């Protein structure tokens, strides 16, 4: 079947956004961290592919949280290591 599925439209997939360079700089400053201290996400993750994320991008993920109502997480796109 030719219809492609947009995973972001699925109700269980949270919102993914690519952050701008300024936003990333601000994020790193607030948490006083370097890029590699961020959690990771693989470049071939279906959600990352849908928003055309590239290795080195930082993705903002906005989830509905059971405890906080709305929670933001940030992940850096990395290449999936083979095997």
């Amino acid at each position, binding site marked *: 079947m030719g219809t492609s599925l947009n995973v972001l439209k699925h109700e269980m997939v949270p919102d993914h956004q690519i952050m701008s360079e300024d936003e990333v700089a601000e994020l790193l400053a607030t948490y006083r961290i370097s890029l590699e*201290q961020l959690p990771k996400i693989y470049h071939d993750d279906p959600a990352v592919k849908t928003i055309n994320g590239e290795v080195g991008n930082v993705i903002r993920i906005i989830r509905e949280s059971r405890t*906080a109502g709305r929670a933001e997480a940030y992940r850096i796109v990395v290449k999936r290591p083979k095997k």
Partner: protein
Amino acid sequence: MTSPKRVGKIEFGLLSPKEIRKMSVRKIIWADTYDDDGFPYPQGLMDLSLGVIDPGLRCKTCDQKAADCPGHFGHIELAKPVIHVGYTRLIRKLLRVTCRSCSRLLMTAEDVEKIVGTEESDLTSEVVSEKDIKKERVCPHCGEQQLKINFEKPTTFSEVFVEDGRKIEHKLTPADIRARLEKIPDEDLRALGINPDVARPEWTILTVLPVPPVTMRPSIILENGQRSEDDLTHKLVDIIRINQRFKENQDAGAPQLIIEDLWELLQYHVTTYLDNEVAGCPPARHRSGRPLKTLSQRLKGKEGRFRGSLSGKRVNFSARTVISPDPNLSITEVGIPLAIANEMTIPVRVTPFNIEEMRQYVLNGPERPKIGSPCGANYVIRPDNRRLRLSEANLETVAEMLEPGWTVERQIKDGDIVLFNRQPSLHRMSIMAHRVVVMDGKTFRLNPAVCPPYNADFDGDEMNLHIPQTEEARAEAEILIAVQANILSPRTGGPIIGGIHDHISGIFLLTHTIRHFDRATTLYLTRNLPLDHLPEPADKDGDGNALWTNKQVFSLILPDDLNMVFRASSCQNCETCRRELCENDAYVRIVDGNLLSGTIDKKAIGAFDGQILHRIIRQHGMKRAARFIDDVTKLSIQAIMLVGFSFGIDDEDLSKTETGQITEVLNNAITDVERRIRIYNEGQLEPMPGRTLEETLEMQIMQVLGKARDRTGEIAGQHLGMDNSAVVMAVSGARGSMLNLTQMAGCLGQQSVRGERIMRGYEDRTLPHFRRGERGAEAHGFIINSYKSGLSPTEFFFHAIGGREGLVDTAVRTSQSGYLQRRMINALQDLKVAYDGTVRTTGGRIIQFRYGEDGTDPARSSYGAPVDVKGIVESVLKEEVK
């Protein structure tokens, strides 16, 4: 936060023979250890160059004494190469993927490129595996026909070739294998994921064996003065002996057969020296028959180097003994036997301000005669770190010498803070800090209200005690680990410490319905409470004597401004709640610290859902909550003693009418089952959707019998009213349930295995007492009798079958959850919540951007929510809030 130093890379390689010789300080050739004078032989296994263990001697290599010499390696030149057991898998793989003649990889360069990739641009490149080698048996480089390599555990390799239609195995000697491995070119190894600079494959075949320093295999001197060598030394002796014999035979030109035998023997000894538990190899044994503990056994398993010595260690300043209950202790206290208190110490630095006190401790000496006596001291430490043991002889001289700068190790006394622990330490409440109370006897004493967090009982449980040795440790224990800091469990956000068993029965008996007490009774009840005066009496009797209500007595221990409304455990969840007029007195209403209506039971003060307790913690703090628990336990114990509480076999007695009713219910059920079976046999049964006929019948039978069992319980329950202690315990939630009561007085009901009636046993029947194919209630484990009336033999057997399932389940579950716990702790142990609320690893990597996404500490939450809205509104409105 700057991250700590980063590990650039880790390289794993093999020790080359060259490196082994380079790090060796001595070639070892003699199998003997010590001569007749007890002096080590030169070039023997205990050579002085390998380090020294005897005090007084100096190491020949580093010229240091036994305490400072780290030990040095030696080496043994093996007569012929032998295989290292730890690398047999690698050797097998390499033999299978390389050519037997030219030792090149059995793949063309192009094929290799396809898998590994051309450029080294990729961070991690793929590696050629055994599966990538095609089954074709001809080398693409030299055209040699390949043979199958057979590997036989533990260390035998052989080639298989076919001759005249028969398979012939040709054994490969370690020397042959080594020759092949030597020829494998470096670039082929890189394709296989091996870095030839640090791990040439031929180094997996040993030609020279390192001899570990004596410091890691010290000999011990037994009581009779005899020397006993370490297992490793024994094994090395064997290796050297065989090696010598091998060399002699080789030089004398012994026949091939003998050489092969000796070679195999040498291989065996080297194998067991490295690992004495290899499959297919009988373990080397000590003279006594005990298997030797060789290199791999030192590292492996629970008591091995990693789990036993590095992840966990034995500690000083700890004690362990049996525990027993003492309801007169506060929950924050722990009773410690005098014998233990006399042994355990806290170091106190002597200053000008405390020198007189310290001098008194020293004068009191190491023997504290009675529990009331002031504590003494066991050691003093001089400024030069020399320890002096105190004894009756030197007390006064040491006390004279004492001056600021010294340290006195004083004994434990009342009020000291100690850590108390019960294994398994599954959650943080398994270790809590208590205050010491020195006591008679030989057991640790604790208030039964702190049993739930430790999961302790008194059927022989033992617990551990640790004494914090520094001011910091004590401060931390008091603030973070103290019992009152851990009343709220981080699991639920509700209390985990609270009344249990008798506390609940007692407080239930005290507060149920309205009763009046005279002055003497009221004082009896409140005698253990810290009260200044009694409240205004609520009533007067006929003679004008003051009377207090039971609810008034309970209100004495509540904070004055407590307001709450909730329903007790005994609430029946009626359709329309009659509130204060509840016939079970289950509507609890507290206004301004006065219990107006309702019964106090498990819901109010219980260990896992004590609502009053929870509210007091939220509004009055941990300290007040701890006092409330102390007061409740003391009051309820007085209450239960006032009424008297016991349970015996005659508490299950039923009258003739009830017994008749129960028999009737059961008979009806059994006939009903028979009727349904008849319908089934006649083929008239309608199957339920998605079920077969048999399944439908089984479900119906289970349902009928289940209902019958419940019905007997109701009959029994009606007869045994609130004056029955089992009913009191079940209703108040103290212990047991109405089901337990049903099984004691009514009927035991259906026994099951995996949720189904018992079907297993003989052919077409469970026991020979029944006819084949019988489907009736009794034939498949329905028990008509109760524990009181006693089980028939067949019933007893079915009960044992059902009981066994539970036992097996618990046994399986504990081992599985134990392993799960270990893996989880390994994964999470180094994570912490940083000051900015993020969860981070030690390297500063972020795991969560806010702990739990909302940053709430569950142990300071109200059942997970950051604010207890209901509680706040209730305390303002003083009304029930929906």
